[in-house]
């Protein structure tokens, strides 16, 4: 009781110190890990980081805003393909695909390509889902499932751009521990910062009781769309990071099973909680690897 009192009243003074100390320790830990871990464990650590990003993104919609989406695999795919097309070697693009010249020649720096990946995922999510926002309950779930199926279908069939079911390969190995955990930390900060302010309170309120939130002056359609946009942006970024880690991308990697795994991470750690998402991502990533030799 005392502790909570403290942190909400003097929230800005103490929180900052705590956070900085933890961040400092965390980055030192990362530095040690990145130099001492073998390739395999380093990789698992990276996957864990990507999973944290994906789970946190999904938490915004499926957790806080309570709009249950099954379509995040499709958004990852959108992000992954975007960054792949922007960064693949020109030679590969020229030989395998038939792209407009500007895209074929494009060699976008990593930072911009992941931002663009996020933006494309955001646009995809919005275009497909905007007409679906008035749907309720399982009708919405069905519509969101559509994102996945539509995106996979497009990736499999627009062969001049996506190279069909084989997908694209040869993405540069840009992803590293600093990118992933940098983005993860930023996302954690962003979610925390939003939740403790007007924007996040509105989204949380919609998730708890939409009618009441509206009575408090929250435009639920608008804020749901915002929530979905942030979520799909970071899902797209997660997909992009994944692509630059695995170095290849094909449609079949983003089926329902991926979404299911992320939902598992979300549920195991506890919905609507940042630390829960991290914990869930850690547990599922570890379980998936530990079960491997069986």
């Amino acid at each position, binding site marked *: 009781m005392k502790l909570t009192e403290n942190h909400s009243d003097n929230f800005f003074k103490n929180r900052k110190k705590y956070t900085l100390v933890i961040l400092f320790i965390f980055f030192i830990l990362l530095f040690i890990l990145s130099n001492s871990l073998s390739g395999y464990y380093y990789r698992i650590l990276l996957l864990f980081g990507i999973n944290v990003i994906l789970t946190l993104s999904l938490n915004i919609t*499926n957790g806080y805003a309570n709009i*249950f989406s099954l379509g995040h695999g499709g958004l990852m795919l959108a992000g992954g393909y975007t960054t792949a097309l922007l960064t693949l070697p020109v030679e590969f693009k020229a030989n395998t695909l038939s792209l407009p010249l500007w895209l074929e020649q494009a060699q976008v720096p990593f930072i911009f390509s992941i931002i663009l990946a996020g933006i494309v995922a955001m646009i995809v999510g919005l275009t497909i889902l905007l007409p*679906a926002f008035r749907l309720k309950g399982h*009708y919405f779930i069905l*519509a969101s499932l559509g994102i996945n199926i*539509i995106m996979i*279908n497009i990736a499999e069939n627009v062969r001049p751009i996506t190279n069909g079911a084989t997908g694209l390969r040869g993405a540069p190995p840009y992803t590293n521990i600093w990118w992933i955990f940098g983005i993860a930390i930023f996302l954690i900060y962003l979610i925390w910062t939003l939740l403790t302010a007007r924007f996040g309170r509105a989204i949380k309120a919609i998730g708890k009781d939409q009618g009441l939130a509206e009575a408090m002056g929250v435009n639920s359609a608008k804020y749901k769309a915002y929530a979905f946009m942030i979520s799909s942006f970071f899902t797209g970024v997660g997909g992009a990071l994944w692509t630059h880690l695995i170095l290849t991308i094909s449609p079949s990697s983003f089926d329902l099973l991926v979404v299911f795994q992320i939902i598992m991470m979300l549920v195991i750690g506890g919905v609507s909680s940042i630390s829960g998402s991290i914990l869930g991502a850690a547990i599922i990533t570890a379980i998936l690897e530990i079960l491997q030799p069986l």
Partner: protein
Amino acid sequence: MDLTYIFQQVLNALSLGSMLALLAVGYTMIYGVLGLINFAHGEVFMIGAFTAMYAITGLGFPLPIALILAIIASVLAGVLLERFCYRPVQGSGDITLFITSLAASIGIRSLFVMLFGSRSMQFPMPKYLQGIRFWGDILITDLNLIIFVFTVIITLILSFFIKNTKLGIAMRGVSYNKQTAEAMGINSTSIIVATFVIGSALAAVAGVAWGLQYGNVRPAMGYHPGISGFIAAVLGGIGNISGAAISGFLLGVGQVLFVAFLPSVYSGFRPLFVWIVLFIILFYKPTGLFRSNIKWE
């Protein structure tokens, strides 16, 4: 594109439509009483097909007995699912129920892969079903007709049952308002079990029909029809049995007709078209083509 061709294509679609209709009815009934998308329904369907296959090839039973065994196996699977997967997590929220059903689906599929391998196995078709008849240039396989007629009969019996019997009325009551139904002296648990029994039996019939029609079974066979059944159930207005049956038919026929009338260059985009149509329908009718039987809060 002459009339014969169109008619032939519609005829072709009858059996696929029938199977999806049977699956969709199961989805919608279970959704009605439990508020749950039973993603494992596709696996119940697969279990039916596997049992029938094994009864025929392994034990040498004739098809009708194999069908009965398939129904028994599927019903058992459905009831066990209800008892050990869904009942324990009832009331713990949508997401948990959802995860449970997805996990059950993947679990059963993996179990069958472990037991039988992921390759497909032959589903033998008895000689008396192999007939083909011609009507002018239009070709009709006996099996296609039989599956269709069988489905229509089952659907009619089921609608009669749901409409007129005490149990059927109770099922509708439970799906409309479970708590009030309980306060009328209805044991909702047994109604839920009964619903699983009926839904799973229909899935078994669909599974056997699938095996006969396509000649093979495999552990992953339930995935695609399962999703189609789910779509049909939603499209038909969740909880609406005849709506589900009709939507199942429409979806099956639609899928075949997409192939039939789309230039084959575009046939890769079939799911895209299906989903666009679906989105359009949902945009204008946000609760499906037909009236939902669920009471919305």
